[in-house]
C-alpha cells in the first residue's frame, strides 16, 4: 500500500501522458481485436460472451486455412531466401572493395522505403501473361515461374532482403578480424576460425535479419493486393481485408485472422529478441560501417554483378511501371508509335488523382510530424527520466513494430466506430482523422527506433551538466537534446512521410467515403486493369514525394548550417 501511494505521488506527467497516448494509438486497437474474438459484436452494441470457439473456425473454412498456410509458406520462404540474399550481399560488400558498392547500400534503402504494392505492381506488369516480357520477347515461362508460390517467394525476397542486408551489415561493423587472428594463433585453420569464431559472431545478425524479413513479409498487404487481379494467392492480410471489405462482411473473423497474424508475428519478434540478446549491437541505426574492405583484382566483376542485381531488384519493378506509363496500349509493345503522354495528361487533369495526392500528402505530413514528436518524447522519457512505466512504453513501441497496418486498421474500425462516440463528436470512423491516427501509429516504430538510436549517443552527464548550469527540463530538451538528435528527427520525419503517403493497407481499410487517397486511387486503377493511369499516377506521385523528401532534407541542412553560422557571428560580436 505504501509503495502504491509512493508510485502515484511520483508519477511523471510527461511519461504518463505519452503512455496514455501510445496506449490509445497502439495497444487499445490491438486489445479490441482480441476482445472481439470472445465478444463478437462488442463494438456494435451486442455484448455476448462467445468463448474461444471462433478461433477454431479458422481451420474449418478452406479459404482461411489456405490464407494461413499461404502466409506461412510465403513468409518462411522469403525469410530464408531474403536472409540468404541479404546476408551474402552484406558479406560481399564488407569483404571486398569495388566501385559500385555504394549502389547496393542505396538499393537496400530504396527498397526499404518503397511501398510494396508498387514494387509488386511493377512485377505483375513485367511478368503477367500479357506483361512486358511476354509481349516483347515472347518469354511466357516467366509468367509461369513467377505466379506460383516459389515465384512469389523469389519476388518477395528480392524486395524484402534489405532488412537482412542491413542487419548483417551492422554486425560486420565489428572488426572481428582480431578474433579470427586469435583463433588462428590458437591453432584453428581458416575453416575452423570461420565456423568457430566468425559465424557464431554473425549468427545472431542472420537470425535477426531472418525474423525481420519474416515479420515484414507476413504482414505485407501490397503484394497480395497487387496480385489479386492476376493470381489468386490469399494471404492473412488480404483475407482480413476481404472479410471487412467484401461481401459477406465478417468483422468477427477479421478479428480472428488478425489475432492469428499478431500471434505469429509476436513469435517472430521473440526470435528477434533472442537474437538481439545474443548480440550487443542495435540494428536499423544510421551509423556508418568502418570495416575496411579489401581491394581485389576482379573487383570490376563484383561491380558488374551489382549492376545486374540492381537491374533485377529495382529495374524490373520501377522500369516496368515507367515504361507502361508511356505506352499507349500494352499490346503495342516497345515501339515509337506506341509512345504516348496521354496517361500523364489524363492523370494531371484527373480530379480524383489530384485530390488523392493532396489528401495523402497532407495526411502523411501531419502523421509524420506527430510521430516524430511522439518519438522524441518517448525516447526522452526512456533515456532521461525515471518514469515507472518506461518498460511499458518501450514494449508498446516495440509491439508497434510488429503490428501490420491491416491489423491496426481493423482495431481502429472496432474502436472508433462505436455509436456512443457519436454523442461526443468523436466517432472518427469515416473521417480523415482516423487515417491520420492510424498513420501516426504506423509511423511510430520508425520514429521511435531511429530517435532512440540518436538518443543513445547522448550521455547522461551531458544533460546533468546542463541541469547544473541552471537549465530547466524544457531548456535541456531545446538546447542540448534537440541539437543532438535534429538530423535523426529529420530522417525519421522523411521516412515516416515517404512511407505514409503510400500506405496501402491503412488507406484501403480506413479511407472515408469520397475521400480519395493516393494508394487507393492507384491500386483501384490497377485493379481495373487501367495500367496506363495507375503507372502514370505512380510515377508522378513518386517523383513528387521524392522531391519533397529531398527538399526537406536539403532545407533542413541549410537551416542547421545557417543556425550554426548565426551562433558563430554572435560570438564574434
Amino acid at each position: 500500500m505504501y509503495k502504491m501511494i509512493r508510485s502515484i505521488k511520483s508519477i511523471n506527467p510527461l511519461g504518463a501522458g505519452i503512455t496514455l497516448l501510445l496506449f490509445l494509438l497502439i495497444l487499445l486497437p490491438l486489445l479490441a481485436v482480441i476482445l472481439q474474438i470472445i465478444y463478437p459484436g462488442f463494438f456494435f452494441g451486442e455484448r455476448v460472451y462467445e468463448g474461444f470457439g471462433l478461433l477454431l473456425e479458422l481451420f474449418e473454412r478452406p479459404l482461411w486455412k489456405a490464407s494461413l498456410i499461404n502466409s506461412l509458406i510465403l513468409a518462411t520462404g522469403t525469410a530464408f531466401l531474403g536472409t540468404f540474399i541479404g546476408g551474402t550481399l552484406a558479406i560481399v560488400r564488407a569483404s571486398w572493395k569495388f566501385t559500385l558498392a555504394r549502389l547496393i547500400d542505396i538499393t537496400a534503402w530504396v527498397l526499404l522505403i518503397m511501398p510494396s504494392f508498387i514494387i509488386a505492381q511493377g512485377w505483375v506488369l513485367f511478368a503477367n501473361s500479357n506483361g512486358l516480357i511476354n509481349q516483347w520477347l515472347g518469354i511466357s515461362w516467366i509468367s509461369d515461374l513467377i505466379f506460383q508460390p516459389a515465384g512469389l517467394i523469389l519476388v518477395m525476397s528480392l524486395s524484402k532482403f534489405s532488412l537482412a542486408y542491413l542487419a548483417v551489415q551492422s554486425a560486420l561493423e565489428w572488426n572481428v578480424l582480431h578474433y579470427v587472428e586469435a583463433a588462428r594463433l590458437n591453432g584453428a585453420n581458416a575453416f575452423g576460425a570461420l565456423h568457430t569464431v566468425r559465424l557464431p559472431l554473425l549468427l545472431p545478425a542472420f537470425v535477426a535479419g531472418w525474423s525481420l524479413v519474416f515479420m515484414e513479409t507476413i504482414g505485407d498487404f501490397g503484394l497480395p493486393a497487387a496480385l489479386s487481379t492476376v493470381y489468386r494467392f490469399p494471404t492473412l492480410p488480404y483475407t482480413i481485408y476481404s472479410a471487412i471489405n467484401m461481401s459477406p462482411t465478417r468483422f468477427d473473423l477479421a478479428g480472428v485472422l488478425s489475432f492469428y497474424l499478431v500471434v505469429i508475428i509476436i513469435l517472430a519478434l521473440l526470435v528477434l529478441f533472442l537474437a538481439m540478446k545474443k548480440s550487443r549491437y542495435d540494428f536499423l541505426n544510421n551509423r556508418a560501417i568502418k570495416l575496411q574492405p579489401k581491394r581485389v583484382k576482379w573487383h570490376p566483376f563484383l561491380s558488374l554483378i551489382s549492376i545486374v542485381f540492381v537491374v533485377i531488384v529495382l529495374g524490373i519493378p520501377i522500369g516496368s511501371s515507367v515504361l507502361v506509363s508511356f505506352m499507349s496500349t500494352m499490346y503495342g509493345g516497345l515501339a515509337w508509335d506506341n509512345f504516348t503522354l496521354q496517361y500523364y495528361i489524363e492523370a494531371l487533369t484527373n480530379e480524383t488523382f489530384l485530390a488523392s495526392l493532396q489528401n495523402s500528402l497532407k495526411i502523411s505530413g501531419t502523421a509524420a510530424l506527430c510521430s516524430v514528436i511522439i518519438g522524441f518524447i518517448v525516447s526522452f522519457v526512456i533515456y532521461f527520466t525515471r518514469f515507472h512505466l518506461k518498460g511499458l512504453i518501450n514494449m508498446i513501441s516495440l509491439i508497434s513494430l510488429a503490428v501490420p497496418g491491416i491489423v491496426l486498421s481493423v482495431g481502429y474500425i472496432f474502436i472508433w466506430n462505436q455509436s456512443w462516440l457519436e454523442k461526443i463528436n468523436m466517432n472518427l470512423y469515416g473521417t480523415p482523422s482516423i487515417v491520420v491516427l492510424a498513420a501516426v501509429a504506423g509511423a511510430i516504430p520508425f520514429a521511435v527506433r531511429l530517435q532512440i538510436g540518436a538518443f543513445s549517443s547522448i550521455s547522461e552527464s551531458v544533460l546533468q551538466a546542463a541541469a547544473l548550469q541552471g537549465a530547466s527540463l524544457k531548456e535541456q530538451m531545446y538546447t542540448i537534446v534537440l541539437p543532438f538528435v535534429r538530423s535523426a528527427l529529420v530522417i525519421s520525419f522523411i521516412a515516416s512521410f515517404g512511407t505514409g503517403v503510400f500506405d496501402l493497407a491503412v488507406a484501403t481499410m480506413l479511407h472515408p467515403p469520397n475521400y480519395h487517397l493516393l494508394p487507393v486511387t492507384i491500386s483501384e486503377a490497377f485493379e481495373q486493369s487501367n495500367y496506363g493511369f495507375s503507372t502514370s499516377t505512380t510515377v508522378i506521385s513518386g517523383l513528387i514525394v521524392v522531391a519533397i523528401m529531398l527538399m526537406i532534407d536539403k532545407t533542413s541542412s541549410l537551416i542547421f548550417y545557417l543556425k550554426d553560422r548565426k551562433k558563430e557571428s554572435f560570438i564574434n560580436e
Partner: protein
Amino acid sequence: MYVRMMKLCIVFVAISSVLLIAACGNSESKSAKGETSDKVEQGEIEDNSSNDPLVLYANDLTDYIADMFEENTGYKMEVVHGGGGEILSRMEAEQGNPQWDVVWTGAMSSFNGFAERGFFYEGFEPENLQYMTDERLALLPENNAYFPMSIHAAALIAYNTELIDKEKVPKSWEEFLSYEGNIAMADPAVAAPAYPVVSYIFYKNGLEETKDKFQKLFGEGRLKVFPKNGPLGQALVNGDAEVAALQEHNAYELKNSGESIDFIWPEDGAAGSVRAVGISKDTDKLEAAEAFVEFMLDPETQTALAAIDDRDSLFSPFAKGAIPDPIRDPDPYIELPDIEWASEHEAEIKEWFADQAIQ
C-alpha cells in the same frame, strides 16, 4: 512547482494536439455532411435551401445522379461512390452509426437481408409506384423497405471470337458449366453483379448439383475468378478464358470497341441484377430521401438515366413509359432467382464460392 507545470503543459500539448487534429478533421468532415445537431433541426422543418446534402451510397452512374436530382427537386445530394461489395460492407460497418441517408445499388438480395435486419425506413408509399408494371411490383417487399427500379443482365455469356467458333459457344448456363475449355467469372464477394449471377445459376440448376459442377471446374483449374468485371473482360480479351459470364455493359463495351469479343443471351435467361433504392431508418432527412425515391421511380428519370452516354446506362427500366438505351437489345431475356431464396443462401454461397476459388 514551475517544472511540474511545464511538464504538464508538454503532456497536455502532446495529447491534445493529436486528439485535436482528430476532432477538428472530424467536425470538418461532419459539417461538410451537415450533421451537426442544430442544422438537423433546420432540415426537419422542410428547408430545401438547407446546406446539408442528402448522402447517397451508390456504385453506378455516380457522376450524374446528384446533379440530376438537385436540378429536379432542389435538394442537394452528396454521392459516395464505391464498388458493390464495398458499399455493402460499409453499410454493415456503419450499422451502429449509418453515415448514409439513401442507398442505390444493384444488390437486391443483400437489400433483402438488410431489410430483415431493420436497416431501412419502412412503410413509405411513393406515388410513382403507379408507373410500375404488376410483374415488377412483385419484386417490391411487403413493408416497402426498398424500391426496385431497373434490371440489367449481371451476366450473359461472352466469348473470345478468335478462340472459339460461334457454334461451340454454350447456349445456356447449364452448357456454360459443362463447357470443355477455360471459363471465367467475377467474384461474388467483390463485384456487386456477381452474386446475382452465381445465385441465379445455383437457383436454376439446384444447389448441390451446381456445387458439384463448380467444384469439378475449380478442381480442374478451368474456372478462373476475377475480382471485378473489368479484369474479367481483360482476361477474356487476353485469351486467359475462352468464355466468361460477363456483365452486360462490359460485354457491350468490349464488343463495340472492336475487341474480338461477342456474346449471346443465354436461352435459360441472363442472370439479372436489380437496382433498388433504400432509405436509412436513421436518416434525419426523410423528406429529401423520399423525394429521391419518387425521383428514381419516375419514368422521366429512368429515361434520362438510360440516355446517358455511359456503359452503366444499359438497363431495362421498371417504370412504364421509360425508354431503354437504344444500342441495347430491345427485349432481353433476363431472369431472377427467387429473392427470398437468394437472400437466405447469400452468405453460404458466397463463402462456399470463396473457399472453392482458392484452388
